[in-house]
């Protein structure tokens, strides 16, 4: 437990009152409480957060109600498929049906699962690699800095989607693992850059020298003193990157390199809808709206977090 606390503290996570075993008496407000309060004032960011929560809840609970109410997202009922294909929105099928008579609402909901899993895991991978790379580059500097940053430059030099397609082709088109793996492996350089510059500026603070003067070890200084002060831009960037990763997944699936039919993903649904753009526009509309609103929600939340975490915005 204590070790867990240490870990959480290193990331600036835990409210530090509890490990002193004392109740908070004074008006001392943590930076986190301050940030939350500022975030609450930002209506757009809250709207984004609410939408993300809705999408997450719907995706998590999908198995409980979606197949029963809306129909199976994958199975094709061959007996009725002919009458049910390409129907417009109705009470029975709120988002209409696709060319094989499957309920689009059901497919959009299951597509949300894919998008969220890919988005979150891809960003987790890129943050993990990016933080380590950025921290090493900034703290050790010199040759390490050069090697890591030139490597990042090489990654930047490749056209992103083409690089992702190539990587998936190499890893194999098996399922979503390779999709988030590819996005995560390709996304770390920007996180590393942001974190590097953040650490570089935090490193100059006198409290870092003060910590060394207290006899703290390099790792303690890096994780306990620099990281919590340098991580704010990463929180912001990571939130926005989830939106970006969802978009990339959609693009890859659209191109046939992501989630494979019959499994639904917002990207491959759009791809299916291309042929029916004029005859059944609802097929394109709803997955498109899902992508738009979800990506927008992450970007708005990220934007709000940036303002909320900015210490200079303090009233």
């Amino acid at each position, binding site marked *: 437990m204590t070790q867990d606390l240490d870990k959480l503290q290193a990331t600036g996570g835990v409210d*530090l009152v509890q490990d002193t075993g004392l109740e908070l*008496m*004074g008006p001392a407000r943590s930076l986190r409480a301050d940030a939350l309060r500022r975030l609450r004032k930002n209506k757009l960011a809250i709207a984004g957060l609410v939408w993300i929560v809705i999408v997450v809840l719907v995706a998590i609970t999908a198995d409980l109600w979606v197949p029963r109410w809306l129909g199976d997202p994958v199975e094709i009922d061959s007996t009725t498929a002919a009458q049910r294909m390409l129907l417009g929105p109705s009470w029975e099928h709120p988002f209409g049906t696709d060319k094989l008579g499957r309920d689009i609402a059901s497919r959009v909901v299951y597509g949300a699962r894919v998008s969220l899993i890919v988005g979150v895991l891809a960003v987790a991978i890129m943050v993990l690699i990016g933080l380590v790379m950025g921290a090493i580059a900034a703290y050790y500097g010199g040759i390490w800095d050069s090697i890591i940053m030139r490597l990042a430059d090489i990654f930047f030099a490749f056209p992103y989607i083409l690089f992702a397609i190539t990587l998936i082709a190499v890893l194999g088109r098996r399922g979503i693992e390779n999709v988030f793996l590819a996005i995560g492996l390709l996304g770390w350089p920007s996180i590393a850059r942001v974190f590097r510059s953040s650490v570089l500026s935090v490193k100059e603070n006198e409290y870092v*020298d003060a910590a*060394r003067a*207290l006899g703290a070890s390099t790792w303690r200084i890096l994780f306990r003193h620099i990281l919590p002060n340098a991580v704010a831009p990463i929180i912001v960037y990571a939130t926005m990157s989830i939106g970006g990763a969802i978009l990339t997944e959609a693009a890859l699936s659209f191109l046939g390199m992501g989630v494979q039919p019959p499994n639904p993903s917002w990207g491959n649904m759009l791809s299916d809808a291309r042929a029916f753009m004029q005859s059944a526009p609802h097929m394109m509309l709803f997955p498109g709206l899902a992508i738009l609103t979800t990506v927008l929600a992450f970007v708005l939340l990220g934007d709000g977090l940036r303002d909320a975490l900015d210490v200079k915005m303090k009233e």
Partner: protein
Amino acid sequence: MAPLLEIDDFRLYFYTRDGVVKAVDGITFTLEEGETLGVVGESGSGKSVTALSIMRLVPEPPGKVVSGDIRFKGTSILGLSEKEQQRLRGNRIAMIFQDPMTSLNPVYRIGQQIAEPLRLHKNLSRKEAWEAAVELLKQVGIPQAEARARSYPHEFSGGMRQRAMIAMALACGPDILIADEPTTALDVTIQAQILELMQEIQQKTRSAIILITHDLGVVADMADHILVMYAGKAVEYGRAEDVFYDPLHPYTWGLLESIPRHDAETKQPLTPIKGQPPSLINLPAGCAFSPRCAYARPECSRVTPQLTEIEPGHYSACLFAYDREFIAQFENRVTQSEASEKVR
């Protein structure tokens, strides 16, 4: 027994793209238990680098120890491993930094930060360290210490933060406390309080203090010995009274003259030392102070003076420090009584 701290002909240069910066160029002094040494000089005279060298906090590269030794209780600290250095820092040798506004980590509570050295060096549990931190806050004169320990740095004023920094430095009962311009960033009234606090604590703990400042007035009350630095070199060293009342180097004269006087009968402009400190890459030939020295003679730009003992325990690096007539020039301009007035 070996003295607490010995610095022996210590030289530390920075190797930069523009050339070799001779930041500390041959400093020698000793520090005894409970003693206070005032290190005085302009910006860039090597005061802070000397302090950071004792803490082994000078980044290497670009810094490099060229010669000399620093011994703590007889053991050279230059040969210590990183781990051994960490055991010394904050534990036996502690440091107070110049700007209390930036020396505390904004994401942790004051109490936690004071507890940190105790957790690092004394293996105290979180709760014990916290209680000790509250006790330390009381000692440095923070009212309602229990509640204030829970505050974050941004809720403290500059003076309170410097008190917290002192509490942090004192947490492990260090043998040496290095204070690098501890009052420069504070109001004059708070300055006096902080200096008083340091003196009080020194009387209680018997730790030695190295007080670095560019203000002779600050060290006047506190220091037992004074080391005057110029361009990385010691130009004068001696007991505080000797340096104040019988200064033997024109640079020290300049520093003494530039202290604002409150007892002046008529309105007088301040007397600054003219010119700029020299570039530490291209030091002037001979005595580094000679281009700015109002008393310079032709020899000064040719012969490099060495710090020599002029009177028992009183050293000067002026070629003419032996010459009573030369020294008398200063005494004629400012009578001794006036000099002592200024200092008080």
